């Protein structure tokens, strides 16, 4: 059987630096996997390769058997890969609900002419988008703030809004880039249950980049560890924690080994 997402041996070099070098992983429907590694290991670059921000020099990426190479970022999102960003990238001056509505644009069927003339179809579609987005905000506990500017949200809420926005694209695969970064312990606990809830409520598989070992170890079925662009270990959380290569890679990054 073909896996939902099959990443096969992808790599990219920036000048002389091989930021990602021969990375492979498979994701099945409903999966929750972790991608970890020290700072600068190439995790975010890996997301950029998967989502079409960069084009890999080697290897290929297949979603349900379909090759994604050469597609532009918005086409890959349409195919079913949606992401969040390590540094929050909301549309700061748009309202919270409009942030989600933008993510619904790719599945709309109305034409520009229909929108200008306010055709019955475009009005109905606009209404169903509104319902969908408010429902999504409700699940994320953000409904009360739907009409406020996104930039006014607390940091933790902004991070959650980014996850909601990615979900609004109706993805098959959700790529989360350090969603717990900058969160306090309380918010991290909430985030963990939120991710579990997303997995239960939506038909998505999740690939999670995270530094917080508590979050990763508690959630993920399988973990891939990268260092200097290369995969150094793959396995269940318990195996990973005992792997000498992983422990070595993390030496000199004390805050992570202690976690």
């Amino acid at each position: 059987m073909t896996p939902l997402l099959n990443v096969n041996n992808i790599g990219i070099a920036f000048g002389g630096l091989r930021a990602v070098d021969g990375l492979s992983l498979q994701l099945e429907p409903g999966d929750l996997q972790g991608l970890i590694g020290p700072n600068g290991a190439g995790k975010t670059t890996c997301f950029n390769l998967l989502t079409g921000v960069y084009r890999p020099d080697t290897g290929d990426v297949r979603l349900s058997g379909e090759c994604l190479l050469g597609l532009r970022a918005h086409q890959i999102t349409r195919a079913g890969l949606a992401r969040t960003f390590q540094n929050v990238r909301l549309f700061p001056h748009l309202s919270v609900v409009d942030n989600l509505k933008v993510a619904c644009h790719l599945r709309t069927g109305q034409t520009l002419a229909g929108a200008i003339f306010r055709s019955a179809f475009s009005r109905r579609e606009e209404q169903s988008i509104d319902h969908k987005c408010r429902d999504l905000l409700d699940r994320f506990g953000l409904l009360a703030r739907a009409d406020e500017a996104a930039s006014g949200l607390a940091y933790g809420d902004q991070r959650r809004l980014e996850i909601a926005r990615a979900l609004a694209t109706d993805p098959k695969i959700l790529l989360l880039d350090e969603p717990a970064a900058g969160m306090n312990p309380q918010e991290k606990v909430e985030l963990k249950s939120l991710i579990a809830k997303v997995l239960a409520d939506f038909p998505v598989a999740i690939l999670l980049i995270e530094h917080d070992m508590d979050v990763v170890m508690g959630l993920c079925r399988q973990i891939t560890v990268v260092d200097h662009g290369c995969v150094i270990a793959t396995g269940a959380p318990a195996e990973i924690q005992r792997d000498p290569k992983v422990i070595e890679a993390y030496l000199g990054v004390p805050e992570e080994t202690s976690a």
Partner: protein
Amino acid sequence: MPLLMPRWVAPILIVAFAVGLQWVARPLLGQYAERVAMDAGIAVVLAVSLNIVNGYTGQFSIGHAAFFAIGAYTAGAVTYYASLLIWNSPVAMGLWSSQSVIFIAATILGGLVAAAAGWLIGLPSLRLRGDYLAIVTLGFGEILRVLLQQTNKQLYTREELHAAKLGELIPPPIGGSLGFINVPKVANLFWVGLFVGITLLVAWRLKKSTFGRSMIAIRENEIAAESMGVNVTRLKVWAFVFAAFFAGVAGSLYAHEVQLTPQDAGFLRSFDVVIMVVLGGLGSITGATLAAALVTVAGEWLREPTHVWHLFGLIAIIRILFWPTGRLKAAIWWAGLIALVEGVRSLAIHYQVDLGEYRMIVFALVLILTMILRPGGLMGTHEITDALRLRNPKRAPTGGAAAGEPTEVPA
């Protein structure tokens, strides 16, 4: 959901507005004020359309006059030569004559040709990130100005037209550097009001649609917009094509009001429009409209001092009263602006300087001061409807706030 009127209400209001302008307001205005009002209307169409590119998508086009001139020359030539052929005279006929049909067709054609030019210019330059668009649009306007100077001399009679050889018709006989004159002067407050209304309605509905939201998302964070599935290049090009179309329409109105010269494609007019958009607040239709009216009237007033404090005051009051936040700053800004303009005017009178000659300098000063003191412009990104909605100060403005955010590096 914001309050949605039945969709036929706005078109009826637009027609009523145009009729009211022509048959109620015009008799009260007098000829001079009528001309200024028409120029203001044309400026509104220009500013509101440029705002779709510079305000919604956050691109920076500084060659809007090029599309204005394309529409002006195209529509002007169609009406002029059609009138020569049909009536053997370029004299303007009444609103109810068949010439009006030609005028409407010419206006739409002018818009479409401008839109096509917008597409040709926009497609290659909007693919690239960065300031290529500014450079390309600026260059395009200047090239067009030179090209217009190289066109054939105008033909003045039907006989000349029939006798013309191919070499006199290509490049088109639109007057070269002498300018293109005698286009039937059929533009009036009715047509200007009608097209202003249509432009505002289309710009508004676009902004409120899924397309407009996505355009604003591009301005807010291009990388995130693309990653959320927005086809960034396509929407930028669409915004550009829309803007060019309405610039062409504005050009047609202008062509049927005064005579054309190649200067109309040049940087000076483009600069005027950029000022209006920046002064109004990037992305705000209300702001672009007010600023266009203000700049036009102020320009006239610098030429020939009359009392336009009413207009200054009115806009200041709208801005300060209706929008609850930042009242004090807005009041100070307005007081400063008024003092500055008044000061310049008194000095000019004292030294007997014709300020009309210096309006570019005055506008440039106003622009610089705006950028320093109120980078968000007159309205920020607020619309007049924000004041009518619930007075919740936390509520996001219609379609986001000020520009001036630095663009970000890739993810």
